[in-house]
């Protein structure tokens, strides 16, 4: 569904990605793990059009979307939940959800999707007219995911959904990610520092190091790989 071929990205004169290639099959959950500066976030940002790609290409649904503007990529059903959540703090929870549905015109569909968002994240319903900036970190993450779902994506890219969130909420957010994948058939590309947790819900995984793919395998195999265990899974 999503194919990345020899992607290269640089910040000024510093090369951030050295030709990364990866595949995300339809309806699967694929994880990118790796340390700080491995290029995980950069990969997502270049796929979603936030940063320019120097070489290589990104194909989505068989079509080339390399270096397309971000708003066109969303329109094709590929949605990115960025690191740090980036909910609109100056907008209410409801307005945030409506922003997610910015490209949609079907009022009935939007209303039912808002209901769906509230069933998976009931806390948001309690905060419906609160400004998003007043939510807790975990609630903001729920809002960011719910907001992304409002665009009716077929593929969702999640960047560090567990970052800075109370451990008790992390588990429930990950449960919902699995549910979204199973119930709605969404393809998910997940970037996560917490490799253990990420691999536990994924089908396939890539280990990135300094801008290249170091190892790739099924999530199951990666969890057993001694090298991966030593470096990323705490032994």
């Amino acid at each position, binding site marked *: 569904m999503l194919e990345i071929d020899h992607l290269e990205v640089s910040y000024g004169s510093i090369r951030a990605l050295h030709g990364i290639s990866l595949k995300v099959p339809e309806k699967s959950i694929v994880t990118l793990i790796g340390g700080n500066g491995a290029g995980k976030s950069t990969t997502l940002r270049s796929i979603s059009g*936030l940063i320019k790609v120097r070489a290589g290409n990104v194909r989505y649904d068989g079509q080339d979307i390399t270096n397309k503007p*971000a*708003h066109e990529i*969303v329109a094709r059903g590929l949605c990115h939940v960025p690191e740090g959540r980036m909910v609109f703090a100056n907008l209410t929870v409801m*307005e945030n959800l409506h*922003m997610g549905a910015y490209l949609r015109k079907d009022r009935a569909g939007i209303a039912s999707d808002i209901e769906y968002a509230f069933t998976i994240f009931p806390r948001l319903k309690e905060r419906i007219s609160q400004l998003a900036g007043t939510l807790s970190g975990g609630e903001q993450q729920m809002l960011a995911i719910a907001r992304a779902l409002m*665009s009716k994506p077929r593929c969702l890219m999640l960047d560090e959904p567990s970052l800075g969130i109370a451990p008790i909420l992390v588990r429930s957010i990950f449960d919902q990610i699995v549910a979204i994948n199973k119930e709605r058939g969404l393809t998910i590309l997940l970037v996560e520092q917490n490799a253990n947790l990420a691999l536990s819900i994924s089908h396939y995984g890539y280990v990135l190091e300094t801008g290249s793919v170091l190892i790739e395998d099924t999530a199951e195999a990666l969890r057993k790989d001694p090298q991966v265990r030593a470096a990323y899974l705490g032994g």
Partner: protein
Amino acid sequence: MEWFLQQLINGLALGSIYALIALGYTMVYGVLRFINFAHSDVLMLGAFSAYYVAPAIEKVLPLPSVLGALVIILISTLICAGIGMLIEFLAYRPLRNRPKLTVLITAIGVSLFIEFTCQHKSVFGADTKPFPQLLPATDFHVLGLIISSNDLLVVFITAILLTALWFIVQRTKMGTAMRAVSFNQQAAALMGVNINKIISFTFGLGSALAAIAGILYALKAPGIEPLMGVQPGLRAFVAAVLGGIGNLPGAALGGLLLGLLETFAGGISGLSNYRDGIAFAILILILLFKPAGLLGKATIEKV
């Protein structure tokens, strides 16, 4: 008491015009975080559009008349909205993501360019031109006060425009997108918002308000000339900062306050010569005590 009420009315009328201009500064600051110095020139172009459109309209509609004036205002507004969007497209868009200082200097350059071009003898010329009487003007005498119909109209039009603007920003999809873009452009792009379109729309909206303000200002002024926008532009800009730049109600409040202050100070003999300085003195004082303006929220720089 009469003096006080009279100044109050004059001040509200002047302040309404400042408020309209200030909204444009503050909207652009909201989405792009820079001061659009050329805004005051769009105001001048609004008055000149009306000046050149009026004779053509007069052939179809009687002038002065309410209908004629509305048509002229509408056409000038559209022209200026186009000019505002064009300025953004040509001068500011290529500089997106550049340091703020670069954009600020460019804006000053654009402003100077418009001013000097319009002063050239083959464009408008530097001389002052009499502004046509667009509306039938009468003075109402109420309780010993003189209220001109123009002043009433200015306050009335401003009230309508402020309400309309509030509605656009708070209740429409475009307005929500504007607020989203002003908070975080990348996140808005990830929602499918075409940032360029929103920024363009913001410039158009701000410029339209400036054009209307320019015409209203011209109706009260002795005449129009290419530098007519500089002083009201500067005041409005002070008003925007006063209210907390980027904050729409703040800009409206700042405009009204500044208009009132200026009128009252101007009414006191001895102070009237210092009117231009007073606006800035107040601004500096306010910024010293409330650096983010009256309604602005202080932001702490993150490291």
